[in-house]
């Protein structure tokens, strides 16, 4: 396993669209392990995409399970992911390993459904919402050569408002 170098803005390679994965082999498994190690090595990132380390293949990792009180599918390795249903929208503040020291507000869908393959090539389908859905949209953008800075609405308008579950049972 090895930590890979993360490409940062204005590296043109971040703008290259990624190709689908066709070979689900040992090399892929090893790459995914490297990608995860790279994600964990930096500032607390909830996701990472293969093109961020210069590999232009449709592979992302998302894991929001470390965030308290957040709906999550746990640690997700999504290969050839494809969102086929979007619902709602919400503003939230994002940052990125590839854009150090900058955050901005981005509008994302609040609920989505997506198809993907796991690292063995098995088909998967997920339905997700909120912070996890946001993370997936952020990472999938990387596969199309987009960064959140391409979508920033305003730095000053509303921040992402986290759902607060109160002890009385009423939710905010």
């Amino acid at each position, binding site marked *: 396993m090895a930590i890979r170098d993360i490409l940062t803005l204005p590296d043109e390679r971040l703008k290259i669209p990624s190709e689908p994965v066709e070979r689900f082999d040992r090399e892929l498994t090893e790459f995914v392990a490297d990608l995860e190690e790279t994600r964990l090595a930096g500032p607390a990132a*909830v996701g990472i995409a293969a093109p961020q380390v210069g590999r232009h293949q449709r592979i992302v990792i998302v894991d929001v399970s470390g965030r308290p009180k957040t709906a999550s599918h746990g640690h997700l390795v999504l290969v050839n992911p494809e969102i086929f249903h979007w619902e709602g929208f919400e503003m939230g503040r994002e940052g990125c390993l590839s854009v150090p020291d900058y955050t901005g507000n981005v509008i994302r869908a609040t609920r989505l459904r997506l198809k993907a393959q796991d690292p063995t090539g098995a088909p998967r389908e997920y339905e997700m919402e909120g912070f996890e859905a*946001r993370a997936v949209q952020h990472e999938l953008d990387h596969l199309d050569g987009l960064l959140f800075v391409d979508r920033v609405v305003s730095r000053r308008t509303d921040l992402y408002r986290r759902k607060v579950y109160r002890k009385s049972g009423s939710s905010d």
Partner: protein
Amino acid sequence: MSDWSMLTLVGQDRPGIVARVTRALYLAGCTLGEASMLRLGGSFTILLMVKGSQPCEGLESALAPVATELGLRVHLDPLEGGLHRHLIPNFQVRVSGADRPGIVADVTEVLAEQGFNILELESDVAGDESRPVYIMNIQGYCERALEDLERALAPLGERAIAVDVAPVDVLIG
């Protein structure tokens, strides 16, 4: 002291001010850092970090012609800070109530007692002149728990100020 200065410009708003000012700064050999431009009460306001090869006095005289022409008041201060000093907010406080003097002081004193560092503050007066409503939105950083902030702010409710605190966070992906 850093190489940066803080330039403040205020004047009647009209299209083209930013273009004219930044061109003059460029021609005077300046680099720009963080900036925040707002239109407040119909006026143009900007705060701009500038760094140049020449001292403050030189910069002021370089800006003088364009400032005179556009009717801008110019203020230039040496700056202690520099780039890459961002703090990330973890709380948002929304305030609203029938407008009266003292709302901002009442709310922000409570926040200050909790060690709350205000990073951004915007406010506006909505409604109409007969029934003005003061609305304020604050983002900041505080190490206290949400419940502590809510408890500290609760008494303001009895003085007809609606205050809502919510945690916010930034997705790093």
